[in-house]
């Protein structure tokens, strides 16, 4: 009937006097890679824990598929979590770790009769049953995360990246409806992290499972996600694709949190053929925006500003001086000062050797109005 996997309705979570999550509505369609992105303390992890069942919302309801699960304990939910610390069981082998979910939840697609009721429960408490089916699934899973034949290895023999894969395998083996990932790459170094980003994304596309991914790393979010929910102070500020979030930020918070940006404040005024923002006597051409009026800010990304001859003919073009520069190898980061004192950051990709500007140099800067965004909030 429905095509969503998760639906949150007015979810609010308070701890004592602190409101961690405030009135969040969110629907996640099946097979989506959704990222909850925000600074630490924005409530993204709390929201994830509400979905998994480790926290019970103070208000609001959580649905998975069509089932109301707000008060269902985690071990009865059809979700799996990959923890930031991996939380692998140190006293079990790799194989036992991966098998644990099968032994506790049962093998998906094979409902055995004696699982329900006191009998099965008690039996499970005495001994974790093993079977050839379990072994086979575990082997398949290890194959999937590219660590075949590691069943008998101890957890602490594995590197950080390998542990990460095992944590993934352990969470996926029960074939959950939704996989929840709480900054799973946070403990890895940069290079490994970039590789795992690509692998995770590919895995998600292959399996078609819904992923809900929590991170504070905007680059990670842009790289991997189908949809990004930018959170701040317990609320979702913007929900959209990577391009929407980056190119059309809805609020100042989003504009500044995702990537770098130049923010210029002024008075919005419509003109015959468009709109301008006026600041200290100077008019900046901006795209016409229905909701904008009065004092606003507009944003223009550093890589969208052109320097030198390339600025000619653009609808915003000003004389400027380079006041600071940082050489980054592949790009130069310049701070330029317009003749009225307004400072802008410009990122210029160094596309030819020696293509560079020195501090003190006078260069015109310019950008197209279409590359700026008026922020109404």
């Amino acid at each position, binding site marked *: 009937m429905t095509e969503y996997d998760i639906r949150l309705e007015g979810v609010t979570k308070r701890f004592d006097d602190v409101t961690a999550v405030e009135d969040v509505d969110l629907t996640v369609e099946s097979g989506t890679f959704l990222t909850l992105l925000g600074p630490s303390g924005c409530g993204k992890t709390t929201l994830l824990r509400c979905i998994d069942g480790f926290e019970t919302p103070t208000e609001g309801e959580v649905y998975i598929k069509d089932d109301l699960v707000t008060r269902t304990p985690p071990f009865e939910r059809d979700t*799996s*979590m990959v*923890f930031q610390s991996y939380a692998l069981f140190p006293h079990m082998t790799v194989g036992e770790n991966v098998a*644990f*979910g099968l032994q506790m939840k049962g093998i998906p697609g094979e409902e055995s009769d004696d699982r329900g009721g006191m009998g099965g429960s008690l039996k499970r408490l005495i001994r974790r049953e093993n079977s050839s089916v379990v072994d086979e699934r575990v082997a398949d899973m290890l194959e999937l995360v590219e660590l075949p034949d590691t069943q008998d290895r101890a957890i602490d023999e594995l590197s950080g990246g390998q542990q990460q894969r095992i944590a993934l395998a352990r969470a996926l083996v029960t074939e959950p409806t939704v996989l929840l990932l709480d900054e799973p790459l946070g403990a890895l170094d940069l290079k490994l992290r970039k590789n795992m980003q690509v692998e995770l994304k590919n895995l998600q596309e292959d399996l078609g499972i819904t992923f809900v991914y929590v991170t504070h790393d905007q680059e990670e979010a842009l790289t991997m996600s189908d949809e990004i929910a930018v959170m701040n102070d317990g609320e979702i500020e913007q929900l959209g694709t990577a391009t929407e979030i980056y190119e059309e930020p809805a609020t100042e918070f989003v504009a500044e949190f995702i990537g770098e940006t130049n923010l210029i404040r002024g008075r919005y005024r419509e003109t015959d053929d468009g709109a301008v923002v006026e600041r200290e006597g100077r008019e900046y051409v901006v795209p016409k925006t229905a909701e904008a009026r009065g004092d606003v800010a507009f944003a223009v990304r550093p890589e969208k500003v052109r320097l030198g001859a390339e600025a000619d003919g653009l609808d915003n073009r000003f004389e400027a001086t380079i006041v600071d520069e940082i050489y980054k190898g592949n790009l130069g980061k310049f701070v330029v000062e317009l003749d009225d004192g307004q400072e802008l950051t410009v990122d210029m990709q160094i596309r030819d050797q020696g293509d560079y500007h020195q501090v003190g140099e006078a260069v015109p800067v310019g950008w197209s109005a279409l590359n700026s965004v008026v922020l109404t909030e």
Partner: protein
Amino acid sequence: VLVALSFNDSRYAVVWQGFTTEWYAALLQGQTVARVDPNAAWSALSHSIEIAVVAVFLSTIFGTMLAFALDRYEFPGKRLFTGVVFMPIIIPSIVMGISLLLFFNIVGMTLGISTAVIGHVAFGISFVAVVVSSRLRSFDRTLEEAAKDLGANELETFRYVTLPVIKPGVMAGALLAFAMSFDDFVVTFFIIGNDNTLPIYFFGMVRQGISPGVNVVATLIIVSTMVLVLLAQ
């Protein structure tokens, strides 16, 4: 340094008297050698072991429960309660012995093995609780969350995750309690009544003077302690 000497010494004393294995052989054959009555020694040893095993078993269970209670729950007066739990470790053992003796007197229990067990449990619990507590403090609660996430209920989580992970702590606590129980002289002395444990028997024996038999027993104790320690590692 001194200890190595004294250790060597106690062996040395045996040799010094001009004998080597004779005393051992004699003792093992059940003869009373130089005031050491092997039967009494064996009975003292078996009392010691009996008390230690029962006391350690009970201390481990209750001490672990106590450690969990202190780690997981907040309740009014928790600080005070924690203080009380750790008191047997701090109080001089003589005072502890007398306190227990008075307690048993008032309650009207006959002194004997069972009162000794109760006494040993009283301080054993504290040691187990301290060791397990420190282990629990470093326990990563997300392991329990991971287990629940994978479909294990509270009991299964405890059975398959929590308990196996803290097991080294529990074992260390139990071992400590065993060593304390086995070694204790002062507390036991007051509350065991007419029975003997090994330290008490030994003490009585030594008061009458040091004989080769004493040395043999001392050597045996040292050797068995060493073996136990090695096994524990």
